[in-house]
Each structure stands twice: as C-alpha cells, then as structure tokens.
C-alpha cells in the first residue's frame, strides 16, 4: 500500500519540556524540524510540575553544583550514572539562566536575582544542612517553562504537527533509525516521517497504575514503540509514589495533613499505623506509610465497595483548624473525593507519580543498547530525553525539582548531539527500508478488523489493577511472581482488543486502542523487572530483601520485550571531572 512520505531533518515525538527544548536547538541551527504531539504542546504534562527547577545558583544561600550532585546521587540510592548526574547538575546553572533570558517569569529577590526556595533533599556541604536551591515561577513553574519554550519555538520556525500520534520507529536492516510512522488524527491517515535523526520525548507512563497522578495522555507511547522495535527498557522497576492520593482520582493530598494530626484508618476503624510504627505512627517516612497502607488493602482490610483504599481522618481536628490550616486540602477532598473532611474521612491510596526508568540513553541524549559484549552501543539516528528516557540521573529515586531540570538539560544536549550527527554523519537522508509502514498498518488493521475481541477499557482496567496490586509499593517475591503471571494473561487479552467505531476521521477509540498497546508493554516490563530485583533500593522496596545489596545489584536492568528476558549493565561510576561519590547507607 502506498503511504505518504514526508521528509524532515529532525523529527521530535512529544511536545513537552524536553521535546520543545530539543526542537529549539535544532530549529535555531537552521535544521528542518517537526514536533509531533498528541495534544497541543502547551497542554503537555510538563504543565503539572509545580515545585520548581533546581540549580546551585547560590542566590539566597551559598551553594555549589557539587553539593547538588551529591544530593542527586544520594537520592538515586547510588543507581544513578554519575557522569550524567555531574553533567546535569553542572549545566543546571546555565540552563536556568538561559530560561530567564528566554523570558521565563521566575520569582525574584529584591536585588532582582532569581529567588530560590527550600525543598526536601536539597543540602549544602554534602548533606550537612538544608539549602535553598529550587527556582520557581509561583506554583506554575512547569506551565511557565512550557509556554516560554513554545514561544521561542514559534519564533525559530519549528513546525508543529498537533493531534498526531507516532505509531512505530522505523529501523533499517542495519538497525539504524530513519524515521517514524505516525497517525494524523484529523484524517486518520498513516504517514511515514523520514528523518535524519529522531528524538523521543514522550513523557512518562504512569497510567499503567490504577492510582496515578499522571494525566490521561501519559501512556508510554515512546516506550511502547521502543519495545516493539527491539530497544530494551531500562530500570522499569523504579516508580515514585506518594502515600496519599485521593482513591479513584489520583489527585494528591499533601503530607502536611498528617503533620497537622490527620490519621489513617482501615476498614475496621483501626489506626493501623500504631501497629507498624508504635512511635512515629502516621508520621513514619513516606515510603513506609505507603507500604503499610498497601498491606492493609492486600490483607483484606481496605475500605469501600472494592476494599481498595484506606481512610485519612481529620474531623477530630475540628472545623476551625481544618479551615485555617488546610483549606486547599478541604477543597480537594470535597471536589475529588466527594467528602467534607470536617465531617468524613478522605479515601486515600498510594499513588504513582513519576517513572525513573525508560529508554536507555547517555548524557548526550543518544539511545544506547547492548550489542555482543558492549552494553552501550549507540543506535544511529535515535535520541531520547525527559521522563521517557533513562539517562540515568534519577537512578532508583528522583530528587524533587530534578525533573524539570532533566527536561531542559538533556533536551538541549540531545538537540546538540542531533545537530552534530546530522552535519557530520548523516548529511543526507538514509534510505527507508521497503514497506516501512507495513508493521504499523498491520497493527491498525488488526484493531479495525478484530472480532470477538476485548473491550479496550476493560483490558486497561485489568492491567491497572494488576500493576497496582503487584508492583505498587508493597513488593514481595510471592506478590511479584503472581503479578508476572497475571500481567502476561492481561497482555494476551491486549492482543485482541476490539473497537466498535471504524471511522477514519478523529477516531478516539482507535487512538485509545493504540495507547493500550503501549501501556501493556510498559506494564509487562515493570512486573518482570521488579520480580527479578532481589534487594531494596530507592523506590523499589522489597519486603523479602529489605536492604540495598551493592555487591550484587548495583546495576541497571534492561528488559527485552520480544523474549521477555532481562540483562544487566553496570552503573557509571566515573563522573566527568570530579571524584566518584562512593555508596553510603541512605539515612535521613
């Protein structure tokens, strides 16, 4: 079948912070660049980042990038690659000043310099004292960044294909990337975008969990495309959780609520944290509280019809305290849980927030895969940045405010690498393989013609239930092994999804079926990777192996989708210019 082919120097998939930063670099270098986005770029999930962007500017207190590096390495629980972490923290200062020059409206101190606020985990002198490092634009930092970068891209004449969904990566017989196939939703047409270099900046995949703070668009499209194209997914067992998201909605209730005296109850009305942590009770550390909540649900003491959550009780604080100190929490509870916490408890559940793993890349933004004895061979013409990429700066746990930083530092770095590659190595387009779109066409045709199949939303719900129950915050050998079996069953069902609406034009059912094919790849990778890691590190807290095991497990997981097997590669222990930061017990 004849398929329209369009040529660009660079194709960027994803219009969030990382995609826009890379596109700007390429367009300003005079390269013909297109950004594909499922939604209008300024509606990307980057907009949800409120906390800020960290850089050791030292505007409020003395600070050094070496201290920021130390905090990031420690936060990563020594799974982060130290060359990439040095690169990010050292370049953070220029990256923030550059955003300021682009016109981003940062909060300022009286002298006019960028204000910096305190944030958990940010320290001076290698963990000694807290330091103010987070730069912010009120509570809209992500929003401000996205709008600033979008405006710059318009000025630089970046092209935007909005309401387009990339379907598959096109690799030639040598394994080089030469473009993508994509669906234009408006027409339903599938096209080939032939590129000298392709960047994935497709964001996270938090929608694999039943409880997630991620927007509906976060379906792991880039990860799905990689999995199908034989590119492994790295460290997919590591997901960041927040203990108290509103059950069934995902919207967060800040931890300050428990500081004010809020308590957690199970279905028997028992304050169960007294049993797990007799001294700290409800104020035990975040990950510990999360695990106890999950355990209560797993052991049948969950609340509600589905027995799938616990309750956060506040009414004993009295209406005045709630109205004075927790007005926004009351607003969220009324709006998203349908309860007024002055009278009733709020249903809550540990909620997935951020994906640490993803497409394996180095600090240049190049995608790297194992080949023979070499664990890191560059895939020619292919780059990734942002939450979809595993660079790996976040390792086993991300430090707050490092996600926005990751987007701009590695978006720019990948953009520069692509410019170099296009100029020096691929000045002309490498030919497309024959029938480059056939694989995608067959996938869409399968969805359109499936009979006696499965409803997409039913399969998605089944997947989310398995991932939440088996790969959530409470992990044991038994639970994870069950999860692997269960998710493989769901994956079989996902091969037979069926849609009723067969129209070409703006068919949302088809798009959601295609998103499901991406989500299931991520879900399978998560369960299999988590089941194999026999230690606790960062966000992967394993009850049967409560300690970190550097001797056996200080290594990155690589999941291959076709064979559903794992391999491992070493963590980078050589920073670019400074001394290695050796592992220590992670205490706070």
């Amino acid at each position, binding site marked *: 079948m004849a398929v329209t082919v369009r040529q660009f120097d660079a194709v960027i998939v994803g219009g969030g912070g990382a995609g826009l930063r890379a596109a700007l670099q390429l367009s300003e270098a005079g390269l013909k660049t297109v950004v594909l986005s*499922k*939604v*209008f770029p*300024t*509606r*990307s*999930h*980057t*907009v*949800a980042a409120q906390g800020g962007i960290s850089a050791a500017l030292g505007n409020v207190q003395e600070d050094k990038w070496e201290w920021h590096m130390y905090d990031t390495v420690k936060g990563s629980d020594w799974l982060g690659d130290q060359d990439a972490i040095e690169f990010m923290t050292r370049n953070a200062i220029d990256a923030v000043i550059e955003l300021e020059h682009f016109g981003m409206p940062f909060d300022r101190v009286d002298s006019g310099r960028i204000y910096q606020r305190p944030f958990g985990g940010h320290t001076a002198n290698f963990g000694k004292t807290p330091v103010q490092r987070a730069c912010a634009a009120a509570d*809209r930092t992500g*929003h401000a960044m*996205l*709008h600033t970068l979008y405006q710059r891209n318009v000025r630089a004449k970046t092209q935007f294909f909005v*309401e387009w969904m990339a379907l598959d990566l096109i690799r030639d017989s040598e394994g080089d990337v030469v473009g993508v196939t994509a669906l234009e*939703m*408006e027409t339903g047409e599938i096209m080939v975008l032939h590129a000298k270099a392709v960047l994935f900046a497709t964001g996270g995949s938090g929608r694999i969990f039943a409880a*997630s*703070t*991620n*927007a*509906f*668009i976060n379906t792991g499209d880039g990860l799905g495309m990689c999995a199908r194209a034989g590119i492994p997914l790295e460290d997919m067992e590591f997901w960041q959780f927040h203990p108290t998201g509103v059950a069934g*909605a*995902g*919207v967060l209730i800040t931890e300050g609520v428990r500081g004010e005296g809020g308590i957690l109850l199970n279905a028997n009305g028992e304050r169960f944290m007294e049993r797990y942590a007799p001294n700290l009770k409800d104020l035990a550390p975040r990950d510990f509280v999360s695990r106890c909540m999950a355990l209560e649900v797993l052991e049948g003491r969950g609340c509600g019809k589905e027995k799938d959550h616990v309750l956060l009780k506040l009414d004993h604080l009295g209406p005045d305290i709630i109205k004075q100190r927790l007005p926004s929490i009351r*607003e969220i509870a*009324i*709006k*998203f*849980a*349908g*309860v007024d916490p002055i009278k*009733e408890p709020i249903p809550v559940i540990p909620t997935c927030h951020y994906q640490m793993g993803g497409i394996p890349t180095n600090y240049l933004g190049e995608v790297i895969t194992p080949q023979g004895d070499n664990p890191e061979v560059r895939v020619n013409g292919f780059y990734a940045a942002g939450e979809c990429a595993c660079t790996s700066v976040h390792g086993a746990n991300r430090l707050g405010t490092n996600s926005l930083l990751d987007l701009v530092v590695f978006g720019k770095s990948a953009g520069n690498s692509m410019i170099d590659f296009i100029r020096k190595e691929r000045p002309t387009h490498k030919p497309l393989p024959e029938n480059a779109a056939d694989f995608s066409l067959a996938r869409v045709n399968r969805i359109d013609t499936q009979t006696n199949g499965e409803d997409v939303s039913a399969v998605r719900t089944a997947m989310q239930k398995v991932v939440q129950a088996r790969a959530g915050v409470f992990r044991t050998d038994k639970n994870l092994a069950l999860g692997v079996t269960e998710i493989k069953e769901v994956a079989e069902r996902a091969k037979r999804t069926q849609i009723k*609406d067969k*129209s070409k*034009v*703006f*068919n*949302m059912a088809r*798009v959601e079926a295609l998103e499901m094919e991406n989500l299931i790849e991520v879900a399978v990778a998560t369960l299999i990777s988590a089941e194999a890691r026999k230690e606790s590190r960062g966000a992967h807290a394993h009850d049967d192996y409560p300690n970190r095991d550097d001797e056996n497990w200080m290594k990155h997981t690589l999941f291959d989708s076709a064979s559903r097997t794992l391999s491992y590669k070493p963590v980078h222990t050589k920073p670019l210019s400074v001394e290695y930061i050796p592992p220590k017990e992670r205490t706070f």
Partner: protein
Amino acid sequence: MSELDRIRWRSRRGLLELDLVLEKFLDRYLQQLDQEQLDSYKDLLFLPDNDLLDFVDGRRDCPEPRMQQLIVLMRDCWQAAQNDCSQ
C-alpha cells in the same frame, strides 16, 4: 461523531484534575449542548490549563460570560457526580 470525538480529544489536558472534571462534564452534557454552547466550549479548550483549573475550582470567574456559563455547569456537574458517589 467525529466533531464530538474531536471535542472529547481536545478535552485531554496536561493536568489530571482537568481530565477528570472535563470527562464527567462531557459524559453528562456533550450530547445536550447547542451549537452556540459547543462553540463556546471549543473556545474554552484554548485556555491555558492553569487558568481553566482556577475557573473550574472557583478560585476565579472567567471574564467571558458565555464561557463562565459552561464553567458553572462544570462545577455543578462535578459536585453532583461526587454526591452520587458518596451515597
């Protein structure tokens, strides 16, 4: 169908809170909106996510009366849905 699908798709936002509120609103009202309201809703979708969330949350009112009318519907519909759930 495709016009309504397009509206549904454009109601996918960067913020989860908006995804949830707009999904409920569309389930309840999309079929009932007249052409003028549909046009207003489409315009409303061009608002930045954070502004739209402020309006929906009732922190501010939308200065555009025809959009404000829809925002009031959204607030009511969300409230009603929550009351249904908690009963």
